[in-house]
């Protein structure tokens, strides 16, 4: 019988049925970081347990690392120092590979996994981080877990989980110039809602995904959780294999060939069953931004901020009012022209080489507007190195961006990179929740890196296609 990738991977990793009807699922690859893992190691010790398959857990440090002078320890923040040291101790004690700062391979966990070739098709991947679906870009079943489940995976390499349904999301046609992967996922979230994906794994496909690079696929899969779906993936293809070939943790020689055969076979069968199918036309998508405090509060940059007066559903009206009160944005006004204080390019959503390369293409020869603080934070030390080799960091610095060191940075502001007061940030990150970027009154507008670059240059929310005359994009490239 034909099966979806989800079905095949689930079945291959299902150990047995548990007494409550959930499945004991084998987690082939476990990724950990400093924020959600220390308590799990504590629980492990309390129960007198050990790490069962230490070679299948990989660690990095990303949330709390400063992005200036991060090689100098102790960090200014003693709590951050305590957290990195706890991770070092736990990894050393249990024999876990740790991509620490001194290795040159440190970075955001969802950038490091693919970069190292740890992320592979047909595997199950769990991490105490909701953006773990990023790894689904490679045809893995990858999802975020809580700390008690980290304990479970450390102790048994398995966890208890109920099976999800599968929703196929087709995006077919050709994206208009100036429209990016970020716009695609913001559009999907707007269309299906922040809770539309609860209970589902999202399988993304269609010609747009066939044409996407691996990094673009990662951007979309990354934000599945913002649409409520714990897990999102793309079927593996030649692009997937080409990306992985030669990476440190990938098989070599004859084993590589066998692996590729296995990976090809794991893709969804053409006539398999989906619990739901959604079709989206690429031509209907334009550069997108958020206006509110939930990722599904999205509009095209050409549109106006919603007016609660036009909303008939009282629940929705209340939610728009609450969002606009927090965002201090005028109902019904065009979103373009909204002044910005801070611009941030980075995060596990858009902190990869292609993100910086694309923004640099347009920033070259331009300047960040006066009174705008702009920072660019590479997703990993390797991203940083490649950008420096290509001179991308110089383009950013010459334009007036601060080029920083690798980490999560201002996406969730657990390090010194924070908004102040009610500053408004044009951000390439993934969440516009109240207080997300470190100030309890700070405001976030989500968008693609190129749209952030446009906001940085003009000092307000702008249609990047106009600012950068994107009709001529091909000539610029």
């Amino acid at each position: 019988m034909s099966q979806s990738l989800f079905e095949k991977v689930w079945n291959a990793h299902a150990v047995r049925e548990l007494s409550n009807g959930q499945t004991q699922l084998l987690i082939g690859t476990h990724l950990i970081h400093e924020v959600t893992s220390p308590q799990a190691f504590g629980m492990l010790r309390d129960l007198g347990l050990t790490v069962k398959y230490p070679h299948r857990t990989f660690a990095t440090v990303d949330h709390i690392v400063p992005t200036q002078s991060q090689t100098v320890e102790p960090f200014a923040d003693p709590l951050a120092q305590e957290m990195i040291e706890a991770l070092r101790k736990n990894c050393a004690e249990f024999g876990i590979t740790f991509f620490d700062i001194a290795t040159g391979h440190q970075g955001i966990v969802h950038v490091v996994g693919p970069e190292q070739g740890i992320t592979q098709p047909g595997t199950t991947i769990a991490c105490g981080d909701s953006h773990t679906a990023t790894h689904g870009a490679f045809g893995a079943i990858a999802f975020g877990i809580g700390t008690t489940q980290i304990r479970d995976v450390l102790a048994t390499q398995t966890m208890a989980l109920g099976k999800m349904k599968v929703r196929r999301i087709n995006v077919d046609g050709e994206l208009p110039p100036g429209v990016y992967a970020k716009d695609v996922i913001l559009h999907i979230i707007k269309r299906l809602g922040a809770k539309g994906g609860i209970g589902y794994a999202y399988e993304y496909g269609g010609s747009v995904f066939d044409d996407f690079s691996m990094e673009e696929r990662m951007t979309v899969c990354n934000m599945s959780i913002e649409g409520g779906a714990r897990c999102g993936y793309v079927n593996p293809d030649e692009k997937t294999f080409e990306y992985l070939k030669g990476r440190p943790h990938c098989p070599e020689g004859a084993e590589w060939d066998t692996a590729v055969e296995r990976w090809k076979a794991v893709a969804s069968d053409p006539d398999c069953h989906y619990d739901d199918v959604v079709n989206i036309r690429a031509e209907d998508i334009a550069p997108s931004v958020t206006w509110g405090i939930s990722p599904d509060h999205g509009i095209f940059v050409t549109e106006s901020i919603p007016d609660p007066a036009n909303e008939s559903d009282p629940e929705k009206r209340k939610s728009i009012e609450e969002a606009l009160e927090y965002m201090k944005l005028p109902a019904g006004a065009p979103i373009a022209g909204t002044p910005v204080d801070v611009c941030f390019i980075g995060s596990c959503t858009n902190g990869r080489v292609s993100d910086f390369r694309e923004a640099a293409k347009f920033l070259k020869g331009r300047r960040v507007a006066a009174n705008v603080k702009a920072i660019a934070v590479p997703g990993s030390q390797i991203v940083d190195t490649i950008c420096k080799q290509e001179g991308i960091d110089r383009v950013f610095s010459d334009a007036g961006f601060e080029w920083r060191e690798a980490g999560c940075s201002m996406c969730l502001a657990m390090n010194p990179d924070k908004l102040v007061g009610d500053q408004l940030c044009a951000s390439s990150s993934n969440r516009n929740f109240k207080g997300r970027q470190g100030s309890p009154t700070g405001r976030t507008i989500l968008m693609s890196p190129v749209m952030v670059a446009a906001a940085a240059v003009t000092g307000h929310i702008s249609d990047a296609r106009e600012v950068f005359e994107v009709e001529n994009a091909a000539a610029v490239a």
Partner: protein
Amino acid sequence: MALEKIVTVTGKAVSVPGSDIDTDRIIPARFMKCVTFDGLGEYLFYDVRHHEDGTPKTHPLNDPKHAGASILLSGVNFGCGSSREHAPQALHKAGFRAVIAQSFAEIFFGNCATLGMPCAAATAEDIEKLAAAVEANPVLEVTIDVEKNRVFFGDDNFTVNIPDSAREAFLAGQWDPIGELLEGEANVANTAGALSYMGA
């Protein structure tokens, strides 16, 4: 592992209304700079409960009449966003033992279940009715009957939904799965053995 069987949860309730209340709001990221979960309770909903200078705002959780509440009432998609278990841990450490909301984000729901904290879904009308009753009488005793999937308060009651897998785990005292997962060790080795990437 023998755990307490959770058949009912009884206590005072408090309503924190709103839709899409995310885990950043339940516990802001800056309070996650810790290596244990101890002490998280005091930071529950910190930024919506406090002004920037740290003085308390008007908020149901700051209202003395709701002190000691153990059942939280809320809206749609409660606990969305970050997978941080710090959120349910903060609720638990602050004394909460159950949440009744219109719907729950998936990771949050699972995290609560492994802490033995039932998340029961109910209709907006029923939650509003209960919230109004609690507002009128904050010491009202509210009981979630996990076995019957019902909430009882005063002379009233309504249906809730706790999905079967979680409900059965609460009733059997197996809401922390670690014991059962450890028992499957040999099966795990078999499954892992059939997957070439699991090799050392």
